């Protein structure tokens, strides 16, 4: 039985439709990540589930209980906010216990739960401090503790890490992941950061303009994005794109663009619409000496270009190069790197190529590589 169900949920603010006909099921114990840019509607979906925002039409269920019209307190959910939402005038202990006290939970039970959460999160020495006296990471833990003591059916996280610096963010990400592993509480997690989504999520929902673009396990989104938006959004560094066309030649399909001609995998369907070819930077392999002065090799599996920028990141480096009008980037090992201004050849493995039609949908999926 799914733990959380959205059925045809629509949300309008005045004339603006923010969420349209949204359907989603979250499995029991799952950590589901909603990821998208600003204005994608991800926070609105979370806030509707929390009861902090009303639903214009459609139903929301938690287990099999319809909670659409219930107040937040009656939904058995707990939420962790981006800026934590800790009561500044109360101690950590009071922040943790307030929600339980308001629910008239017996004193000894409150103490037990507070002690349990504080122990799990390492908050014992901080219980009598006020939020002002805590570091960002500690406040984050208190906010999580406050959600944990409620022992809710569903945890909601609204960009919980975006107020932390990079190092702390990575650390808290791991903590949240392992915590959820232990508690096995159904969790809906909203973020704009696709790295967070990829590392945390059992499944990821990619949102844009209030619509679901794709739902799947992280690796599925990475390997088989269903459209150009997801392809560009998931994965760092971002996928390279080249606009062009497909044409058959001697029984094989060729992708053609200015300064580029590439042979496609067998079985690629013919198409008359404009095509976008996508290739991830880590899928490009690089030769420093151009095999031919002209663009493309005899096998039509390479692109020839000139290096314009080399970013050294340590173990790997990003090589930016220009192929005709196209600016591409390859992610390569740092042990031997080309120099700026030199010509290089990049091998484009046909199996790793993604093709998108004029409407952005993936065509001739490379779905076999799993």
């Amino acid at each position, binding site marked *: 039985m799914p733990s959380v169900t959205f059925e045809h949920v629509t949300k309008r603010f005045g004339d603006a439709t923010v969420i349209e006909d949204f359907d989603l099921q979250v499995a029991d114990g799952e950590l589901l990540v909603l990821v998208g840019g600003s204005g994608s509607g991800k926070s609105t979906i979370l*806030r509707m589930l929390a009861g902090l925002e009303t639903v214009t039409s459609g139903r929301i269920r938690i287990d099999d209980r319809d909670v659409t019209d219930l*107040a*937040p*307190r009656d939904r058995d959910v707990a939420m962790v*906010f981006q800026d934590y*939402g*800790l009561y500044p*005038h109360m101690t950590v202990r009071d922040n943790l216990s307030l929600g339980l006290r*308001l629910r008239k939970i017996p004193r000894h039970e409150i103490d037990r739960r507070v002690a349990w959460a504080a122990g799990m999160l390492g908050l014992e020495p901080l219980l009598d401090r006020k939020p002002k006296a805590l570091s960002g990471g500690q406040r984050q833990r208190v906010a999580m503790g406050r959600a944990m003591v409620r022992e809710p059916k569903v945890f909601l996280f609204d960009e919980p890490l975006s107020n932390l610096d990079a190092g702390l963010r990575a650390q808290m990400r791991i903590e949240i992941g392992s915590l959820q592993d232990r508690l096995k509480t159904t969790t809906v997690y909203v973020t704009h950061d696709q790295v967070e989504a990829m590392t945390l999520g059992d499944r990821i929902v990619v949102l844009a303009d209030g619509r679901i673009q794709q739902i799947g396990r992280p690796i599925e989104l990475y390997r088989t994005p269903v459209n150009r938006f997801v392809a560009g959004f998931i994965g760092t560094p971002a996928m390279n794109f080249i606009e062009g066309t497909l044409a058959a030649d001697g029984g094989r399909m060729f992708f053609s663009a200015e300064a580029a001609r590439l042979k496609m995998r067998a079985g690629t369907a013919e198409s008359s619409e404009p095509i976008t070819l996508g290739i991830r930077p880590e899928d490009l392999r690089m030769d420093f000496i151009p095999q031919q002065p002209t663009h493309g090799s005899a096998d039509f599996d390479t692109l020839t270009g000139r290096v314009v920028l080399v970013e050294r990141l340590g173990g790997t480096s990003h090589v930016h190069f220009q192929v005709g009008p196209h600016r591409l980037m390859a992610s390569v090992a740092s042990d031997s790197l080309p120099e700026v201004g030199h010509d290089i050849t990049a091998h484009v493995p046909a199996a790793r190529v993604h093709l998108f039609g004029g409407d952005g949908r993936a065509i001739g999926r490379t779905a076999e590589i799993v």
Partner: protein
Amino acid sequence: MKLLRRIALYAGLTVAAITFIYPFLWMASSTFKPPVEVGSLALIPHDFTLDNYRTMWARAPFGRALVNSTFVATTITLAVLVFGSMTAYAMARLNFRGRPALNAATIAVLMVPGQLTLIPLYTLIVQLGWVDTYAALIVPYLFNATAILMLRQFFLQIPQSLIDSARMDGMSEPRILFTIFWPLSKPVLSIVAIFTFMGAWNEVLWPLLVVREQNLMTLPQLLTVFALGGGAGSVGVSLASAMVLVVPVVAAYAFLQRNFIESMAGSGIKG
């Protein structure tokens, strides 16, 4: 040269401060002087007397006026704080139809000079049969547009996540206001409290219109009527009656001086 300028600065400030403080000291000391001494500049009475206070207390119900003023000003202040923050909370943090209209109306009301509504308000009080009642002194002041706008401004800056957390914790909206917003709004609440209390405590034109019964008069009104009606008879007595009004305010001012100054500056329009 530099030293000379500093000396001149302090000398100037001292003269200025004397012109602001000396009259009040003179007033206080005059109330303890017999009539023949009142014209003197000296601050220490030659023949110390409490006669002025005895006369003042005997001739007009100043004790009663003190009670009236305290009751009226306290009630108004509490109402402005409680009702005003409830209104401001709704206007700042809740969505409801009519919110933009209420906002606009509040600002518009502040732009209309009080003289325009003085007479219609007075006729309204007459028609309600409220002349010579506490209601006439209190009800028209139960809400204060300036206070509501100040509170609203402050409430707008409190993070949304606090409201959200409190709602998830199961609080009702009034509970959020009084247990989460109030503790965080102490500065603005004290500003509103002080300027409201001061305004109510010192108001004189409105009571002069709606109260004629001596036993219902507030201090500034009774003081004015007493001084003008010749009831005082002497300068010392009339100043002694003024002291009843001044002493509580100056005492409060001495304790809360900083808050007083900020509240008056913050209230802007009230002056």
